[in-house]
């Protein structure tokens, strides 16, 4: 799950990105996706969503049809965007598979469905004062969910799917370079370097060394590219690392030239497979 970038509004918004509501009110979205094939063998991606809305004032707005649920599906790779309006908190959306590729992002909002609709809120932060009221027009959001991302390429993204090692005659024999311009991080290795990598990769005891050297450099370069705000978000590796970094409550460095910070994040992300594996296996030897 990737969090929506923060936006500011001049009135309270129910969202896990804001603290406007302090009474435990929630607006969250769950999505399940599956592929169905019609009799004529046309494939569709079916997205089943379920929204949890717990604030009584906003629930009433939905039930009274003063507000509606808007679910949006966006796939940048294919220029696809769909807006689905509904009065229901649960529904299904079917999209021809030929219109989607890479990642699809799904988000939900509760939006006002008529002009001149006044709400007297409940459960708000004290900064709004008592009995805060606001007058809304059509289309103004009242609640915004986090954004779900569905990877259409891989059911589960493993590191081996994100880093592609290749032998390249164009590289200097003892060197390697990292190319971040596709879904996978491509490591172009010169002939000798590739042979050295092969030796380490084939040996279970030495394999963790890759995670504190070559793979670590790949991930650190990826973090640096994310920090630079380069146009990389569309790539699978970028989405996967950003999600992982957010899950671990780490922060992408604000300064992309801060290599130490990028390095530290990479070592943290790969710690299990690298430094800790080496230390643990040494400890076993010592203890044996």
């Amino acid at each position: 799950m990737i969090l929506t970038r923060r936006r500011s509004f001049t009135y309270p918004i129910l969202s896990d990105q804001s603290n406007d509501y302090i009474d435990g009110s929630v607006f969250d979205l769950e999505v399940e996706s599956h592929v169905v094939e019609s009799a004529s063998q046309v494939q569709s991606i079916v997205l089943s969503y379920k929204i949890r809305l717990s604030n009584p004032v906003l629930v009433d707005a939905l039930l009274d049809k003063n507000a509606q649920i808007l679910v949006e599906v966006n796939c940048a790779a294919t220029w696809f965007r769909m807006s689905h309006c509904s009065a229901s908190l649960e529904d299904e959306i079917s999209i021809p598979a030929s219109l989607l590729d890479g990642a699809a992002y799904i988000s939900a909002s509760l939006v006002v469905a008529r002009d001149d609709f006044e709400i007297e809120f409940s459960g708000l932060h004290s900064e709004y004062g008592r009995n805060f009221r606001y007058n809304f027009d059509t289309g103004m959001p009242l609640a915004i969910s986090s954004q779900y991302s569905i990877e259409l390429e891989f059911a589960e993204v493993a590191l081996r799917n994100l880093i592609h090692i290749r032998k390249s005659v164009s590289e200097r024999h003892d060197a390697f370079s990292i190319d971040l311009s596709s879904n996978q991080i491509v490591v172009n290795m010169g002939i000798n370097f590739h042979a050295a990598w092969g030796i380490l990769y084939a040996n279970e005891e030495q394999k963790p060394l890759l995670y504190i050297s070559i793979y670590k450099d790949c991930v650190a370069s990826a973090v640096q590219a994310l920090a630079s705000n380069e146009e990389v978000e569309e790539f699978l590796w970028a989405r996967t690392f950003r999600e992982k970094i957010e899950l671990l409550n780490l922060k992408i460095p604000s300064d992309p030239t801060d290599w130490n910070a990028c390095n530290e994040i990479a070592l943290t992300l790969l710690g299990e497979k690298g430094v800790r594996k080496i230390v643990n296996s040494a400890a076993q030897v010592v203890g044996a």
Partner: protein
Amino acid sequence: MKTLELLTTESVLELKSISSARPASLIGDDGGVKPLATLVAEFGLTLTQSRFSLDETVSIRIPDGANWSENHDRENSTRIARALAGMSPARATDERIWATLALGEFAEYSNVRRPIDRAKDSDAAIESKFKHMRLASSNRDRWRENPISRLWWLNYYVHSIEGIDPEIVREVLFLNADLQSNLLGRPGVAGYRVVVGPLIEHLHSEHIKNATPFNRDRFREIMKELDFLVGRLAVGAMDKAVASEWVATVIERCN
């Protein structure tokens, strides 16, 4: 129709690697990019049969000049769609297709529309141009840089706007390079066809029917304002009439 033989993914990666390490080696004696057959032979690249077909009877027009009015993009966008009939958006994200066509079947066109020239370009420029204008890794490369993929994707966009004659959209989209890149370069707006429809109708009426000259600065202002507001309003919930009125208000405000 002939079945397309495409560069393999490994071969595309090798071309990327070569363009970083030895960009000049991609250039032939005539100063332009070497033909695909030469690149294949010289760098040991591989072509593989694909499930895509190309109608060889459809050609694309070589630009008559560097000027926007001489590039034939508008006409060529329909031609490339005919040549690649049956291509879907999901398949058209495949970089191998566009790299192979730009370097192979449509190399002559590519060399005129998106020239890479040893006499004018530094090694760094050759690397950058080759990666973006012959290969097509990113979404932006596909709709903007690679000379073949951009024609297909622009044609796809033309037909994706519901409730409006595609030829009206095409006229507007191919009116001006700045209009095209400002509109499509703001995916937050361009993705909302309900907003783009009325915007296209307005641009058509102003610049084509009434022949008012296109004002780049004003259009940038309109797009900036729309982009800002689209992030704060649930425009996806608007019906066409409401969206039209809203777009008209924004345009009026930017006058």
